[in-house]
Every structure is written in C-alpha cells, then in structure tokens.
C-alpha cells in the first residue's frame, strides 16, 4: 500500500477539519481498535468495543477490532494497523503504553488514541479515568452501611493497577467509619470464580456483611457467595445490581464505552484533538450507582437513602475539589 494519504492525514491531525470534511462522504473513515488482550474475562474491553462499534455504526465509519493474544502481539498489531492505513488507531491500557510510544513516535503523521492511560506525544489522544474516586465513594458507602463494622473486598491480584481500587476504597471507608475493619483477599488470578467465592465465604464467616468484588470474572463467585450466605456485595464497571438486586447493592461504574464512543465520534466529526482527557467523578466518567448514576434496580434497604445522601455529599466535595482523593497508593 502506498503512503499517498500521508499529507492528508497530517492535515487532519493538525485539526483542519473543515477542509477534510468535504471529501469525506465518499470514503468511510477507517478506524482500528487494537485491544491489548482478548475480549473475555475483562468486561472493560467488551464495553470499549461496544462503545466504539456504536459510534462507528451511528456515524458511518468502518471499525475493525483487533484482539491481541499476548503482550508481544500488541506492538505487532499496532504496526500492522499502521501499515494497513487505518485513519485512526485506538488502543487501550497500560500494557499498550510501550508499544504505542514506539509506534506513534515512528509514525508522527498518523492519529492514535489510548484509553485508560496517558502517552505524551503530539499525535496521541489519551483518555484516562480516576477510578480511585469512585472507589472512595464505594468505601464511604460501605463504611456507613455496615452493621458489623467489618467490610471485605475480594481482589483479583495484588498488582499496582488494582491498588486504585483497594486504596480508594480503604480511604473512603476510613473517612466514614474509622472503626471498621477492612479485610482484603487476593484470588491470584483473573479467571478463578471458584476461589473468589471461597474467599468471599471466608470473609463472611469472619463477620463481613458487605464484600466488594474486584476480582474481574471472579466477582461472579462473590455474588454467588452473597446469595448463599446472605451478605451484601458490589460489582465493577457496569451496573451489576441487575444480576441479583437482592444482594448486589452497589456497582462502581467506569465509562469505558463512553470514552471509546466519544473518541470515535470526535474523530469522525473532525474535532479529534491530541492531548489528555481524564474522566473522574466530576466528568461523570466514573461513578457509583444511586450516587452518581441511576440504576435499573431500586435502592436496597441495606444501603438506604440516608447513606446515599451522605455519600452524595462526599461526591460533591470531591467534585468541588474540597475533598482530595490520593492519586496513587
């Protein structure tokens, strides 16, 4: 394939949208979404794919999703996407950082976007989330709602990435209920609901009445344990309360789909800009059901309106900047 498009692309990247809009209807914009792993156990990528697909469909662009089998495949897939002349290449996550840094630097005339982390290059748009803020709200709600003063969390793995969840949660918990005991257990795998369930059962037997799931697909195991033992739980990323409103009383939300949607949309509409966009509570890019976002299910009595109101207040403080949630832990 020839590199004839390069000058046009260049113009587009520097934001000369009107000029380019004219010739556009003839040729569909081609967008590649290169995922750093398989869509599967991590709903995060499914959401991203959905969001991008939705935008592409609505706006008449062509979208190709490429899943990477492993770390080494990411760079390869990015390079191939460049070679195949996609107009915009979107990727995601920390795992893709190194690969994109290389590929984007080598191809300064092409457009890239990365979701969930920051790359400081003139041709890359970065979209990030401040999950710890939502986790903080979650912890705050848990601290207020717990009757036993014991709160648990089942986490996939003890890795830095997930510290945003455990750290934010723990800070929020301390803020509303300094006496509450926080029990954390790690599954050691993203794909082990059986062990996640056993860990939740153990935490319940130790007296936790609210156990937050952050074990990727293992959350399903935590939910099942909740159903069996009657404690309360919460899920991640999307509104999980619909699965079992009796026991899943909250969900921590992350608008990956919106981020992908917006990225595709801005590109097709010609407003695509390099630089950093972050989504936190303020931008409503992350949140917690009932507090920042509505839920399809009615509020459970375990949380109760009183708690919701108190946490809403905390949310406002964070949005206003009067209450600080640490960046890292």
């Amino acid at each position: 394939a020839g590199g004839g498009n390069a000058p046009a692309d260049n113009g587009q990247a520097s934001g000369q949208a009107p000029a380019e809009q004219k010739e556009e209807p003839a040729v569909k914009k081609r967008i590649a979404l290169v995922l750093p792993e398989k869509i599967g156990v991590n709903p995060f990528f499914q959401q991203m794919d959905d969001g991008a697909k939705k935008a592409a469909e609505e706006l008449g662009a062509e979208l190709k999703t490429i899943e990477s089998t492993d770390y080494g495949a990411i760079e390869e897939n990015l390079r191939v996407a460049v070679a195949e002349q996609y107009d915009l290449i979107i990727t995601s996550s920390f795992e893709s950082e190194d690969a994109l840094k290389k590929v984007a630097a080598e191809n300064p005339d092409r457009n890239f976007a990365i979701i969930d982390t920051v790359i400081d290059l003139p041709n890359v748009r970065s979209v990030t989330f401040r999950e710890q803020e939502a986790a903080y709200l979650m912890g705050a709600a848990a601290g207020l709602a717990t009757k036993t003063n014991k709160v648990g969390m089942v986490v996939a793995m003890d890795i830095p990435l997930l510290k945003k969840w455990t750290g934010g949660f723990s800070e929020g918990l301390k803020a509303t209920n300094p006496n509450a005991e926080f029990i954390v257990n790690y599954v050691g795998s993203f794909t082990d609901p059986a062990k996640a369930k056993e860990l939740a059962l153990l935490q319940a037997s130790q007296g936790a009445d609210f156990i937050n799931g952050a074990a990727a697909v293992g959350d399903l195991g935590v939910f099942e344990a909740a159903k069996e033992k009657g404690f309360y739980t919460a899920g991640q990323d999307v509104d999980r309360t619909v699965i079992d409103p009796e026991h899943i009383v909250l969900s921590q939300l992350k608008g990956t789909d919106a981020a992908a949607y917006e990225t595709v949309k801005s590109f097709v509409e010609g407003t695509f800009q390099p630089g950093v966009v972050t989504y936190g509570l303020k931008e409503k890019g992350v949140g917690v059901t009932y507090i920042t976002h509505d839920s399809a299910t009615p509020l459970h009595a375990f949380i109760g309106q009183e708690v919701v109101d108190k946490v809403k207040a905390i949310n406002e403080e964070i949005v206003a900047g009067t209450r600080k949630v640490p960046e890292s832990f």
Partner: protein
Amino acid sequence: MEWLDWSLVSSTIRMVTPILLAALGGALCSRVGIFNVGLEGLVLVGAFAAIVGNHFTGSLFLAVLFAAAASVLFSLLFSYMTIGLKANEIVVGVAINFLALGLTTFALRAVFDVKGAFYDKDMAGLPRLEIPLIHDIPVLGEIVSGHSPLVYLAFLASILLYIFFYRTVTGFRVLAVGMNPVAARSLGLKTTRLQVMAILLCGVLCGVAGAQLSLGQVTMFTEGMTAGRGFIALVAMMMGQSHPLGILASSLLFGFMDALSIRLQGFSLPTQFTSMLPYVLTIVAMFFLKDKNGGASSNQQSAR
C-alpha cells in the same frame, strides 16, 4: 486459633475436590505408563460441558454425565494420538490444554453468545448434602456435612480406585502394564486396551472434576476457570506416587497449605510471598517423603 477456623477446613475440602479427582485420573494414566499433562484441559472441558448440559437439560444428573462424556471424548482423542498414532504424550497433553481453552472459549460464544463468562443466576448448582446425624455434631458437622455430592464422590473415588488397583483383576493387570510393559505384552495381556481404558477413565474423573468446579463450587462457566488446577493435580499425583491414598493425602496437604496462605494474606507479608507458600511448603514436604520416591517418577524420567 482465630486464623484456622473450621470453615476454612470445610472450604479446603471443597477446593481440593477437583484437584483430587483430576489427580486420581492422572494416576490412572501414569499407572499404565502415560504421563498426562492434559489434565487441565480435560477438567476445563468438563466444566464447560457441565454448564451446557445443565442449561439445556435442566437435569444436574445429566449435566454431570455430560461433563464426563465430553472429557471422555477428549481423552479418546488423547489416547488415539498417543497410542494409535504414537505421538509424544507430552506434546499431545499440552496441545489438548490449548485446544480445550480455545474450544471452550469459542463454544461459550457460539452456544451462549457471551464472552468471558456465562452466569445465570437462576441456574441451580449441585445440591448440598446434609448428612443426617453428622450434620448436627458441632465441628465435625460443619466440616463433613453440607458439600455437593461430587465432593463425597471424590473421596469415595480414591477409595474405589484403591480397591480397583489392589483388589480387582483388571486393576492388577493395569498395574502390571505400567510396571513392565514388555512382560505384560509377552504374557498376552491386552496392553493397548488396558491403556485406553485407563485414559478414558481418567477422562471420566476429569469431567467430574470439571462439573464440581462449574456446578459444585460455583454455578457458572468462565474462560480458563481451571486456573492451573490441572497442573496442581499433576503435582499431587506425582507426590502421591500415583497411589490413590497417597494422592488423597497429597491433595489435602496442598489444600491445607493453600488455605493457610489465604489466612496469611491479612498480615503484612506481600501477597506474592503468601501465594508462594503452598509451593514452598510442598517442596519442603518432599524432603520428608524422599525415602519413598522413585517408583512412580522413575519411569517418567525417561519419558522422551
């Protein structure tokens, strides 16, 4: 004893069941001279088939049967490749693991149109058996009663397998084939048939192990939900020297060490170290078992 309460013991028993079943299956293979590294894949296939069976028939009994049948099908492939086509058993085992992961992931999408996990909160899992009298005894009841039938089956299986090996004619011949294949053949024993039978039986056990995982411990299927249990089963099998009761002991040993490591997570040690614990302690345990080593593993040494 705050950090080693009885619910932990009961949890250990549940967690160890799939490992125990798969290890017993592995032992059957190793007793006929075949080192089966495909346990992980066989269990995974069983786990998936159990959910499919349950979903479409609504019968838990049929679901377990379905799980066993699916794993047996894979075992059939394993035995055809290794015995029929004389392929290297380790290559076939590894390929079976890859194949199982790929096929179940693919079928998850094809059958249920979901990626990653299939969870239906209305699907009934295996029932918990409350053993009448024992259930009311304080500690014992908590530990022994209230598990899925497959848990009891697993423990029963190790005893049955013991009886099979050391009391029945066919079991005796199976042992003979593994001990000295040349002599067994020269006696006109049907070595191939015995080997295939052992491999298929291994499939049954692995299938049941999968069913326990996806219908007993949880009620769902997720991609790669075996999470390395097949390899732990392999270790348990070798440590137990392919002896059914030895495997029972080594599986429990590993299970308890795993439980212990969970309890230690609360303390200030980095999780990586607590997670290491079961493996480290297993190696330490080997120091004390050293006198009895050799038997089962010596013929695997020359697997080439």
